[in-house]
């Protein structure tokens, strides 16, 4: 790994490449430094423990964990379908299901509004038949977050499913296991590292979600005002508080990335592949 090069003390990199790379690092580091520079450290604790902050933080945690749970419940079967079942139009379905990764979140929020809003194609029936209104509710936040977060889990799990050796399923079936038992006892354990990575990515995405949430669910303290929304709002009223909340979000995301790094780049401990002869 890179440590080896460093120990050697000699990295022959063309000067222009090195210079541009350093500019890129500075570009990413600078905003963080700016926040740290301006942070009102002396009053940070009171900002963090202030009722509004705690409410937003709690709401963010609850909603993002719900979004992660929903992403797992629906995303794993979706990934399985995309990886294992060869149906016509699969590429189109995959593109559709991962569209929200590249869509501007605000556009996603608008689309959700016209689908699930009170006048939306599905929303009007939810309202009329079940008295269920999603926009401007906490449930709406969860829906918006799930919408943007689930694709991260789906593509991670699908890639892992594709790498599995299907003959392990065969072996399981010949031992008397049903398809469902095989899925639970053979497939799921094999994709567990990818599932964990996908879930953490989806959770981080849900935690940071802003555009779709504010468009679809609005910005009501206590019901739909999550951390990112609180940061945005605080920027206008109390910039110092915004800085502290932003730093908290950054710390959480940074911890997730560092924690993921090993899973992301290292091969799993027990790849389901050929046993050593």
């Amino acid at each position, binding site marked *: 790994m890179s440590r080896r090069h460093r120990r050697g003390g000699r990295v022959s990199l063309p000067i222009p490449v090195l210079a541009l790379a350093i500019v890129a690092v500075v570009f990413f580091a600078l905003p963080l430094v700016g926040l740290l520079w301006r942070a009102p450290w002396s009053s940070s604790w009171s900002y963090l423990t202030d009722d509004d902050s705690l409410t937003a933080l709690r709401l963010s945690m609850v909603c993002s964990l719900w979004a992660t749970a929903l992403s797992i419940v629906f995303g794993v079967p979706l990934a399985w379908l995309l990886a294992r079942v060869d149906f016509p139009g699969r590429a189109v379905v995959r593109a559709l299901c991962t569209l929200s990764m590249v869509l501007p979140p605000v556009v996603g929020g608008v689309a959700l509004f016209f689908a699930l809003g009170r006048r939306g194609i599905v929303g009007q029936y939810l309202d009329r038949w079940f008295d269920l209104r999603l926009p401007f509710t906490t449930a709406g936040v969860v829906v918006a977050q799930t919408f943007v977060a689930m694709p991260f889990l789906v593509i991670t799990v699908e890639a892992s499913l594709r790498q599995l050796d299907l003959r392990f399923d065969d072996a399981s079936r010949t*031992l008397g296991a049903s398809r469902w038992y095989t899925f639970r006892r053979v497939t799921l354990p094999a994709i567990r590292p990818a599932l964990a990575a996908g879930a953490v990515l989806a959770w981080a995405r849900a935690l940071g979600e802003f555009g779709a949430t504010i468009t679809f669910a609005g910005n009501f303290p206590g019901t739909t005002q999550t951390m990112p929304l609180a940061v945005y709002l605080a920027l206008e009223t109390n910039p110092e508080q915004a800085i502290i909340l932003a730093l908290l979000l950054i710390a959480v995301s940074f911890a997730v990335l560092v924690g993921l790094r090993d899973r992301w780049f290292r091969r799993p401990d027990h790849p389901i592949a050929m*046993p050593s002869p």
Partner: protein
Amino acid sequence: MTLSAQIALRLGTLDLQADFGLQSGELLALLGPNGAGKSTVLRALAGLIPIDGGRIAVDDVVVDEPANGVFIEPEHRPIGFVFQDYLLFEHMTVLENVAYGLRARKTPKADARRTAHEWLERVGLNDFADQRPHALSGGQAQRAALARSLATNPRLLLLDEPLAALDAGTRGSVRRDLRRHLDTFEGMRVLVTHDPVDAYALADRVAILDAGRVVQVGTLAEVTAHPRSRYVADLVGVNLVTGVVSDGVLTTDAGARVVIADARSGSSFAVIRPQSIAIARNGGGSSVRNTWTGTIAEIDRLGDRVRIALDGQLPLIAEITVDALEALQLRPGDEIQASAKATDILVYPV
């Protein structure tokens, strides 16, 4: 207990039409070249591939018969399957692997573990019960896979090239172990292999599968004494000629004539041993009535013997001594005459 299989199946370029049966307690080896469809036959028996036509019945229970819409899923067939590279589940211990089939059948955990322990004891792996499969050697992994598939008490055990994943050094001892364990199993066994040594050491009977057809069934001695396919003839190292006999002469499709000392007529196989073939330079003259002209395609030295491959109307392998090779100064491309006495040629009907 019996197995009766009439398998018709198309898979890519493979056109499989294999019929065979098994008696109670018998071990049949499916022997054949790569791509003959051996593994596909096993997968069809296991239900991992549905057949297109025909019928598979285990103990008079039909498990696959497309004409009647019968297809029993693999998990409901009374089978065990040992895969070529064993496919032990790496995220489970060896014991959990062996207990897997019983757990899948809803056997209580304690019972399943007890039975699994008994099986590990039988195959000598109890010390590895709590290890992961990657801690096992190839031979141990094979025994674990065998224990895993036998733990559910199948009536038909299918083994796909169980020795192919092993290096040559351990294969012999693992084969002896396998034989010992297979001998204690009372059900029917079908073993797929491309190695006649496996078939010889392990099987009661051999079915030769060539290009999707069962071309010969019998003991290995019977099969090799009267080859009915190029594959078996090559295996035994003899020349196999196919043709139609009339008036004591067998004529091949290419028009080559082989004089034989046999009164029968009709479609026949003729076996000419390479050692029975004499080689002479053109114009050398010979009193033998069977003389064929050919070009030397290849010269292969095997110790003090030399194998000469001849191209011509009747392609042949001849075996001569090194002395003869040097006396005749043979080289690839030379045109020579090969001859064999009619009484040295074995003929039997197709």
